[in-house]
């Protein structure tokens, strides 16, 4: 079973992401911000990270950069799931090493399709 780390400071968003992914057979672990996400990723083996951008303590792009510095996460897919939708932010995400960018609110079927694609 693939393990997915969902990082978001909104408990509701984490719950929605977890519900959709778990209903499709994935195991989901959660973190409230980038710092906690980094901590979870280093203590557990994770197959995919889905992170929000604007969070206290550590934002999503910083989390992406921090994960890419770790040997275990050089090639792990990382998706940004955020309300930010500007081209400049997406470019920053790409430069940081993110695999993809999804704009909230997400469509569950689309999320499952993207997750399936990046985990293949």
């Amino acid at each position, binding site marked *: 079973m693939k393990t997915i780390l969902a990082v978001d400071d*909104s408990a*509701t*968003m984490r*719950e*929605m992401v977890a*519900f*959709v992914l*778990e*209903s499709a057979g994935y195991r989901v672990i959660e973190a409230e911000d980038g710092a906690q996400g980094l901590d979870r990723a280093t203590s557990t083996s994770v197959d995919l990270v889905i992170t929000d951008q604007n969070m206290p303590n550590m934002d999503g792009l910083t989390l992406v950069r921090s994960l890419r510095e770790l040997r275990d996460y050089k090639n792990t897919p990382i998706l940004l799931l955020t*309300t*930010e*939708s*500007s081209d*400049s*932010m*997406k470019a920053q*995400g*790409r430069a940081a090493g*993110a*695999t*993809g*960018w*999804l*704009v*909230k*609110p*997400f*469509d*569950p*079927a*689309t999320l499952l399709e*993207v997750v399936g*694609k*990046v985990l293949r």
Partner: protein
Amino acid sequence: MTQQQIATRETPNVKEAAQATDLLRTVASTLNERLAVTADELARSQDLLREASEELMTAFRGAADRIVAAQKIAAPASSENTEFGLVLDHLYRAVQHIQSHDLVNQLIDAQKQRVGKMREKLEQALSIAHPEMSNPATPEQWIERSRAMLDCIVAGIAQIDEEARLPGSDKQRQGSVDLF
């Protein structure tokens, strides 16, 4: 026009300068009162939204837990399982609306912060023109006081502008996906 008339027009007397400061104080005070009402309305809207969201979440969790449990015991190719899949589709639709509730809640939070920051600056401006403070003796001192009040108000507006320029979500791009 006599020299005296020119001097009067170019240099306001103490009374005129004091009136200008008083006008500024009235504007700041009125704006602050209006923003207090806005802040109160935002807080009430948020309370109502939170209450509705909590009820929605409780209903959602109840349905989600039951469908997941039922799916586990149903045979994979059974008609029951097909039915569960249809129910799951309805829950997926609810997922999108619940997210919208959450995002609106966050937007209200941001608006409350903006209003709060503007009110702080207005209160700062009003404290400069506090009646207990000794009144200036010269027009220049009154003008200086007005300028200090204006600086506070302009700083408050600049804060709002800065936050409004931050990249946000474009409705047309909601739900969009970019794979790099």
